[in-house]
């Protein structure tokens, strides 16, 4: 259960090796040890994540999850809930891909769309159903500022996040009467494995800083947060910049 000060007792991480996702789990676990379910494909990175959380006193289970295998997602979510309620579910899987390849190669584009959008929708539907049955819970979906306005440099990724963001924003409203709180998180440039070697954008941040924002959002039942916070104002300005000007901006 989530207690009066917003501490959860159990967390499910869809995308069990996500650096941002794991940082959120760790941030919750510093106040209280948790029961954690990591959903990911078996890998060395997953084993490392499990050991790291166990060192914090968490009880960790793993569930086999392949974002590409959409037909398995209902079962994956069902087995994640098999050993008790899930208080906070994090949807934190995704691919950045190579934009130039993605808009010129059908297979690369479809893979991005399937993992970032189709799988996110499938998982969202399955999680929404389980959390509604529970009558409470928090669902956190990691979108991106890239979904707010498509840029030439990563518009395929951006388009998948735009769809995913719209779906979870709608799910926020749909699940509200069921007692389930959905939070959409829009991080900017985060220094992780995913962005290694890329040139950091302005207002870049770290997984730990994003985690602090997410923990606060869950505790205060916020529905949309940006990481870092000031991105909200930057993006709401950028969204209205005319195209001829926008394409000249160094963003």
């Amino acid at each position: 259960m989530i207690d009066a000060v917003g501490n959860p007792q159990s967390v499910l991480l869809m995308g069990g090796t996500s650096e941002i996702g794991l940082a959120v789990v760790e941030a919750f676990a510093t106040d209280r040890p948790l029961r954690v379910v990591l959903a990911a494909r078996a890998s060395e990175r997953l084993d490392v994540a499990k050991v790291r959380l166990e060192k914090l006193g968490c009880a960790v289970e793993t569930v086999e999850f392949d974002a590409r295998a959409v037909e398995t997602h209902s079962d994956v979510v069902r087995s994640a809930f098999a050993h008790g309620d899930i208080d906070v579910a994090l949807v934190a899987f995704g691919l950045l891909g190579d934009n130039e390849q993605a808009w010129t190669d059908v297979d690369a584009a479809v893979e991005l769309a399937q993992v970032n959008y189709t799988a996110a929708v499938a998982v969202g539907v399955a999680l929404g159903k389980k959390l509604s049955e529970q009558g409470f819970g928090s669902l956190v979906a990691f979108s991106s500022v890239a979904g707010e306005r498509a840029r030439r440099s990563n518009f395929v990724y951006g388009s998948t996040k735009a769809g995913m963001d719209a779906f979870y924003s709608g799910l926020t409203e749909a699940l509200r009467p069921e007692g389930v709180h959905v939070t959409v998180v829009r991080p900017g440039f985060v220094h992780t494995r995913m962005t290694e070697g890329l040139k950091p954008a302005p207002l870049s941040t770290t997984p730990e800083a994003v985690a602090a924002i997410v923990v606060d959002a869950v505790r205060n039942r916020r529905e949309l947060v940006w990481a870092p916070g000031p991105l909200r104002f930057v993006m709401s300005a950028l969204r209205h910049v005319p195209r001829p000007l926008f394409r000249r901006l160094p963003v």
Partner: protein
Amino acid sequence: MPNTSLRGWGRTAPTRANVVPVRSAADLTGALAAAGPRGVIARGLGRSYGDPAQNAGGTVLDMTGLDRIHSVDAESGRVVVDAGVSLDTLMRAALPFGLWLPVLPGTRQVTVGGAIGADIHGKAHHVVGSFGNHVESLDLVTADGRAHTLTPDDELFWATVGGMGLTGVVVKAVLVLHHVETAYFRVDTEQIDNLDDLMARQSVGDEEYAETVSWFDAVTTGPHMGRGLLMRANHATLDDLPPKLRRHPLRFDAPQLLTVPDVFPPGLLNRATGRLFSEVWYRKSPTKLGAIQNITQFLHPLDIIGEWNRGYGPRGFLQYQFVVPLERGDVVRSVLEEMVRAKQVSALNVLKRFGEGNRAPLSFPKPGWTLCVDIPVGGGLGPLCDALDELVLDAGGRHYLAKESRTTPEAIRRGYPRLDEWRKVRDAADPTGVFTSDMSRRLELTS
């Protein structure tokens, strides 16, 4: 009302449940038979601060419709009441017969069923014990739909007293009330300017009073830290009353002045307003002996203001109440110091010395000091309370389940060493685990 969002008096951690009104035995057995995998819990007036009367995804029985007072026997003091009757209603019915409910908590807006489930206590605990001590028998409907009349000779009776509704549903009870001549108190108030003096004064002469409690200020620091009011009273006799009150000595004198609107922003209670409130509260009652006061003035000053919990704003608040053995009164000061250090504001702090506890394995009171503080929910509160838990548990203390909303299963196991004994009786009464609540899941009270 199916699928309703419920929360406790602290207005934190809402969850949704299918709320089923219970107005008859048939309603109850029907609801139990229809219980789904997420189980059932009974709810009264929702005055518990946390989540014991919530059941996320399951069924919550609204017991307030089961509200008949069956009989009042002026001679013996025996009353037969349904579980959904509030203590306020019961008092209004019993007072004309010269009968007084011996155990009254900080509000009268609790049901008889809830009072049994939480084994509530009042300012008279050192003399009369807790609510369960005054129950002659109770009717409990267990998970199989069968009704049992239980007396203090039954183990299940004591598992139900303080059992937070997890043994079954109390539908009716026989209580034994006390005889009084008037509805008024003869109150001695002492204004004392620091915590040590307050506790020292409270440690002598309590047995001469039917009711004792102190309020103190947790905002002022330095030499006047914990300055407060020691308030002790006996029931006034007819001779004690001024002529004006003597005409209607048993009149239930309990006014409510206003209801707080639900418009407060978060952070309304801060250090500045907390200091102001503490100053006013301290100044309003200079030392005065033998004052005649009505029930609201003495027992329930907060009942003057309806829905006062709204004053804490949308994020809600929690009440932290614990008991520590008498010889560990130092914990009271340590808790206060920790709160000041963490810059948390508690406007109303209530300190009381408990007398002997009863046989119920999960009953909260035991001989010792009990302190409760109200704290608005905000940043840093979780870690502070976790630190306070350690102080309390290391001293051999425990938490009050009716007010608990955030501790750990481990803390409850440490504070209630008879938990397993209770579980055994509970599991026998409810082998398939029909009765469950957000609290029982959160604190792992049931397996």
